[in-house]
């Protein structure tokens, strides 16, 4: 396997997530801490109560979800990427030749899903809607179950991506977005509503 495979797979898997990181997390030191340490800093919740909150609960949900996603993706992919740098031929014993590629795509979808699940879960906890939390857990189980169909990649990747888009739309709506804003942003105009977690 070549450097091209290595870089290609790593960018497929981590490119969007790192882009999200770069544009929304890195500039705010607090967000970086939450990214690393997760929800462990309970004090921040107290901060948001007395009004001098440097970070909103939605942002925290987003960053925590992104952190979880990055960790899970890193743990899935990193040994693969290390092996991709070494010698060998993919699928020489009759397995699928698309192993690295599909792993990279699966990792990407898992990172995104974790991010959205974070937002949904936090929202469910904040608004006491237990069914949102159950839905998050349920979809997680579904996506993991779908991977049992590997190496039948059509059966695992495509439903996962569909689920990811559905979860994305749900998280978007929960964070205060609406279709008008989406259309406006796609057309390059300013959005008027409150900033979304990603901003």
């Amino acid at each position, binding site marked *: 396997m070549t450097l091209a495979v290595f870089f290609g797979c790593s960018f497929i898997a981590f490119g969007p997530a790192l882009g999200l990181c770069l544009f929304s997390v890195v500039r705010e*030191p*607090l967000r*970086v*801490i939450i990214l*690393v*340490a997760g929800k*462990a*800093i*309970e*004090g*921040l919740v*107290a*901060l948001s109560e*007395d*009004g*001098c909150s*440097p970070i909103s609960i939605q942002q925290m949900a987003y960053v925590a979800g992104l952190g979880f996603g990055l*960790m*899970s993706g*890193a*743990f*899935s992919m*990193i*040994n*693969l990427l*290390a092996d991709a740098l070494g010698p060998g031929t993919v699928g020489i014993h009759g397995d699928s030749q698309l*192993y690295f590629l*599909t*792993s990279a795509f*699966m*990792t990407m979808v*898992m990172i995104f899903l974790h991010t959205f699940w974070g937002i949904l879960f936090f929202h469910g906890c904040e608004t006491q809607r237990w069914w949102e939390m159950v839905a998050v857990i349920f979809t997680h189980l579904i*996506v*993991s179950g779908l*991977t*049992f169909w*590997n*190496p039948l990649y059509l059966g695992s990747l495509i439903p996962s991506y569909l689920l990811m888009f559905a979860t994305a739309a749900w998280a978007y709506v929960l964070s205060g977005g609406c279709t008008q804003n989406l259309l406006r942003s796609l057309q390059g105009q300013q959005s008027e509503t409150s900033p979304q977690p990603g901003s």
Partner: protein
Amino acid sequence: MLRKEPLCLRRKDLFCVAIIGFHRAVPMTELSAHLPQFQHGQLTENFPDNHLCNTNDNSERRRHDNSERRRNDNPESETNGQPQNRTQQVVEQDEEDEELTLKYGAKHVIMLFAPVTLCMVVVVATIKSVSFYTRKDGQLIYTPFTEDTDTVGQRALNSILNAAIMISVIIVMTILLVVLYKYRCYKVIHGWLIISSLLLLFFFSFIYLGEVFKTYNVAMDYITLALMIWNFGVVGMICIHWKGPLRLQQAYLIMISALMALVFIKYLPEWTAWLILAVISVYDLVAVLCPKGPLRMLVETAQERNETLFPALIYSSTMMWLVNMAEEDPEAQRKASKSSTYDKQAAANQIQNEDADLDDGGFNPEWEQQRDSRIGPLESTPESRAAVQALPSNSQASEDPEERGVKLGLGDFIFYSVLVGKASATASGDWNTTLACFVAILIGLCLTLLLLAIFKKALPALPISITFGLVFYFATDNLVQPFMDQLAFHQFYI
């Protein structure tokens, strides 16, 4: 344990820094926990002539205690003796608070993340590529018992004995340093430091460079090599012990920490290394927190004398400005000291305005509005600063216009890197284990800084991170890795 306003730190709070300085006579340096250090009011230049600034400030409101750990080295072998000094700054809080939000602290946590990460990345990259540092070429004289034994019990016993010897040497050296410091043998200590820096910057970097060239099969003649090493070493000595650009000084400190960690990784056998890490954390905890601990005694002695110790062994993330000096020309003072890590500024009217514009340290305009609405607009003027300066040095009042600077001792860098490096060298889980240990150390650092903000006294930085690191290492290597392996084999995702 959180206080009632857990995240709003008092602006004047100083984080107590427990630094175990290290002596670099030979490869071993130990620095132990450093806590980020905010200096109120008095900002001292964080250059190597830091101690000069501090000794000049007789009326500083804050006291520094630096603790350093030194090691004695024999020329041939690495020694582990390290005297420890601890730097501790205690900040008094005002009744009416200007409160520091966590954002301010967060920025400084990030300022520690970056160098620690960089050091670990350098160590892991070297371990993975240069086989010299994973090759067994003997052991130090301080770990005389071999681990190539016939039985597991014998191996365990040997490693325990090795760790015991190492820790005893460290304790002896620490006490030696305390004694030297108490009897004001500064020249001895300085000489010790200089010799260790020389050995690190010249000899060990020469070995490192040689091994890197061998790994990548680069042809090099001795003349070019001598020139490179000479330049590297001399510039390093100047940067570290005297003056130099901040970034360069930081880079050198990271490099020598990485070199030291690599030597540790090479010459400590496996079980001994883990045991030493664990015991060092416990020792750090005891030495820093017990009333009769050597570190604490060092800190108190330094506090009495109102001086700092050996700033060359401390990593500082920003320059600290010299505040006060109402007698001094504010312009000259600002120009002399103003070299922020973020930008250089031309003359500005007020230091805090400049900072607010370009490097607000987390105090963004929203924060300032909140502060103003809560306590009214407050500005520090030279007059107010002079007035505070004039207070007796053990006064509890404190007005600080600016706090800057996070310091971390190099020993912490070294031990964090040793843990991650050993994990990457010897783990069967390979990258998963390395990643897990890396994240564990960062989380431990976060928590340590948080505890520091809460307790406001000197706390060791090693125990939490190393404990997390060790737990994560063994858990990931033995539990998580086989599981992840099977998952990856079948391409299941959880």
